[in-house]
C-alpha cells in the first residue's frame, strides 16, 4: 500500500473535484460543502464516465454522462440503478490531504 500527499483542501473547489493520476488509475477527489473529502475511482460503474466532472450535492456526485448518482462514501449507485465505483481512504493530516492506495 502506498500513500500520496496530494495537496491541501483549498486545491479543491467546494462542491467540486480534482483528479489525481496514480498507479491505480485516475482517482477523483471530492470536497463537500462542509469540507469533507472523498476519493473515488474516476469511472462511473455505468459506462465509465468521469465522475470528477459531475455535480456534487451533499455526499453524492451525478455522473456527467447519464446522470447516475453515486454515493461518495460507498461508491454505490443510487437505487434503482445498480453498480459500485471503487473508493479510497483519504485523510486530512496537518492540513495535508493524504490518499491511501
Amino acid at each position: 500500500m502506498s500513500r500520496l500527499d496530494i495537496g491541501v483542501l483549498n486545491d479543491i473547489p467546494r462542491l467540486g473535484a480534482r483528479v489525481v493520476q496514480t498507479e491505480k488509475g485516475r482517482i477523483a477527489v471530492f470536497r463537500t460543502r462542509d469540507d469533507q473529502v472523498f476519493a473515488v475511482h474516476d469511472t462511473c460503474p455505468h459506462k465509465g464516465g468521469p465522475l470528477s466532472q459531475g455535480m456534487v450535492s451533499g455526499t453524492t456526485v451525478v455522473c456527467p454522462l447519464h446522470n447516475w448518482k453515486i454515493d461518495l462514501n460507498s461508491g454505490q449507485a443510487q437505487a434503482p440503478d445498480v453498480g459500485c465505483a471503487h473508493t479510497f481512504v483519504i485523510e486530512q493530516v496537518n492540513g495535508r490531504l493524504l490518499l491511501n492506495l
Partner: protein
Amino acid sequence: MEKLICIGNGMAGMRTLEELLKVAPDKYEITVFGAEPHPNYNRIMLSPVLAGEKRVDDIILNDAQWYKDQWITLYTSEKITTIDRVKRQVISDKGTAVKYDRLLIATGSTPFIIPVPGHHLPGVIGFRDIADVETMLATSKTGKHAVVIGGGLLGLEAANGLLKQGMDVTVVHLMDSLLERQLDKPAAALLKRFLEQRGLNFLMAAQTEAILSTTPLTSSEQVKVRGVRFKSGLEIPADLVVMAVGIRPNFELAKSAGLHCERGLVVNDTLQTYDPRIYAVGECVQHRGTTYGLVAPLFEQAKVCANHLAGYGFASYKGSQVATKLKVTGVDLFSAGNFNGGEGCEEIIFQDPAAGIYKKLVIKNNHIEGAVLYGDTVDGSWYFDLMRDGTDISALRDHLLFGQAHLGNAGHGDSRIAVLSNDAEVCGCNGVCKGDIIKAITDKGLFTLEEVRAHTKASSSCGSCTGLVEQILASTVGNYSPTPKDKPLCGCTEHTHEQVQRAIKDQHLTSVAAVIQSLNWKNPDGCASCRPALNYYLIATWPDKVKDDPQSRFINERVHANIQKDGTYSVVPRMWGGLTNPKELRAIADVVDKFKIPEVKITGGQRIDLFGVKKEDLPAVWADLNAAGMVSGHAYGKALRTVKTCAGSNWCRFGTQDSTGMGVKLEKMTWGSWTPHKFKMAVSGCPRNCAEATIKDFGVVAVDSGWELHVGGNGGIKVRVTDLLCKVKTQAEVLEYCGAFMQLYREQAKYLERTAPWIERVGLEFVKQHIVEDEAGRKTLHERFLASQQYAQDDPWAQRASQGVAAHEFSPLQTLEVA
C-alpha cells in the same frame, strides 16, 4: 418522538405516510388503524380482480413487511370508534386506546345504498372492498342473475366483471344515458351498443321500487334476494344486487368528535381540519366545496399533507382537475372538464360510428374546456394538459382533433399504445420496451411518471415518449392522471419555476446559496437539476450583479467544451454567419496537428468541430485559436449557438438581400448570451430558404421588400415549423426585434424550455403583443438585452487560455509519495 396516528389503511392514508417518510423519516412514531383485515391495497384495481384479470395478491401496495420496515404499528380489523380530542387519543372497537400528537383521518367513503325495501337482504352489496369482490365471486359460482343498480363508472366495471364470471347481468340506470357525468349522449350511445354486443342487458330510465326476497320453506333456511321490482311494475330475477349509485364520504367518526363536516370532513389548503392537530386526506374530505372519488387528487393531497406533517409548512393544495377512464377491457374512453358545452362554447366533433370512434372537444375563447373521447383515447392526456395549462389552441385548431402525433413527432411511428406489442420499443433513447414498463409498474407498484423514469429510464432522456409512457401508466394502473404541470422546480423544493423567478426578482436574491436559504430548500446544496436553473435565473435577472457559480454549471458550461462519451471534449470555434477564411482554417489545421486531435467534422450549424481533445489541452488549444482571432462558439451551452446563413444577394442569382451580412450582424449582437435552453438562428436570402430558417428559434427570410421574422421553430426531437411573427423593412429592425424576442424568452421561459414549447404554452399572441404591437415595450426589451450583453460578451476561452481563470479545472493534482 411525536406520535402520529392514521385512521384508515387505504390508499390516501398510506400514500401520505409514504410521502412523509420520504421527507421526514424520523419525525414520528406512527400507528395505523384499518377496519379491513388486509394490508393496504390498490382499490382502483378491484375491477380487474372481479373480471379475473388480476388476483388479490397482485393489487397489494404495502405488505405487512413494509409496515415493519418503517417501524409502523399496524392494527388491521380494528375500527376506531372514538376520537377524544381533549385527551388526544383514539379508541377502537376492540378497546385499544392510543395517544396522538398529530392525527390523520383517511377513512375514505362508503357506497351509498338506496334505502328501498329489501336493501338489507343478504346478496345486496356495494362495490368497495375486497369483501364485496369475494361475495360477488362466490355468488357467481352458484347464482345466475345479477342486477347492477347504477350505470356509472363503478357500476359498469362491476357489471363487466360479473359478466366475465358467467352471470347474466342487467344494468339498471335511473337516467336515460349511461355515465352521464362523464359522457355526452352520442358517446354514451356508442358505449351502450358495445356493451350490449358483449352481452350486458340495460334497463334505462328505470326506478327501483323494491328488492324482493325468497320465502323460506323451513325456519333454518336463510332469507335472501330473489329479484328486483321497478316503479313500472316490471320484476326481474336476481341472485345478487350490486348498488353502485355513488359514494358517501365517511365522516361520522370525525363528526362525532365535533369536527366541522358538511358533505365531507372540511379541510383547508393545508389539509387541516378545524382542529389544527388533526389532518384529513382522501375521499372523506371536502376541500373548497368539492369531494373527490378518484385517485389522482388523493395523491396530490397526500403530498401536501405530508409536507405539513413534516413541519415544512409551505405546500398548499388548491384542488384538482380530474380526468376519468373506464377500466373495462376493450373499451377506450376518456373524459375531462366541461364536455357538454354551454354559452360561448364551440364544439369540434369527429364521429365514425362504424369504427366505434367519437371525439368531442369543447372550446371556449381558444381554450379547451372539456373533452370526450370514445374508441380512440390516445390523445386524452394531451388534451388534458392543454386544458389544465390553459394553452391557447388557436394555432393548433386545424389539427387538434387528429391528435398530437399529427403535429409531427419524428421517429416514433404509431403511437396507439393499445396496439403496440410488449416488445415494441417505446423509449428510443434508452431502448425501453412497452413490456419492460408494464412489468416495472406492476412489480414495483409505480404510480407516477417520475417513478417509471427512475426505474426504467423510459422518457428520462429526450422526453419525446413521455406521452406514450403516461398512456402505458394510465392503462396499467387504471385511474392515472398525468403529472401536474404546475410542478415544483425539482425535488428540493415545492416552489415552481415561476415562483422562484419571481422571488429572485422581488427579494433581490443574487446567489444560488441565497435562493436555497431564503426559499427553504430541503437540500442545502440543491441538486444537479435545480442549481443550473437557479444560476441561469440569477444571471438573467441580475446580469450586472450576479457572479457566475461554476459549481452550478453542468460540466460543458463549466469548462466551455462538450464532454464526449470517452471523457474527452469537443471544441467548436465561432464562425460568424458561417463565414471563415484561410487564416482561421490554417490555425484550425495547425491545432489539429499540434494536439493530435483525432477527428474534424463540419457541424450542422456551419462550423467546424474538433473531437477528442484532452481536457488538459483545452486552454492551449483555445490560446492558438484565439491567436487567429477565433472565440468560443458556445456549442456546449444553453446559449446562442449559431446563425446559419445562405449565400444571399452577394453571390446568389436568386438572393434578394444580403443574408450572410445580416447573419453576421445578428451573431455579433447575440453571441455569448445565456438563454433558458439552446437558441439557434438562421437567415435565408430568399423564400427558397436554403438556410432552413423556419425550423430555428429565430429565423429570418429575406423577401424583396424586406425581412420576414419567424419564431419558435425546432428541428430536433419534435419538428416544429416556426410561426410568422411579422415582416420588417430594415436590418436595424431585424436586430431590434431579434434582441427583444430573445430577451422576452430569457425573462419568461422556464429553464430548459425551448422556444417551441414556450410559444405553445404562452401563445403566439402573447409574443406578438410584446414584440410587434408594443413598440415601447419592444425597445425596452431590446435595451435590456444589450445591457446584459455588456457582461456576457467576454470570450470564456480567452479568460481561461490567457487570463488564468479556473486554472484548477485543467490540471491534475500533483502528488508526492509519503511514508
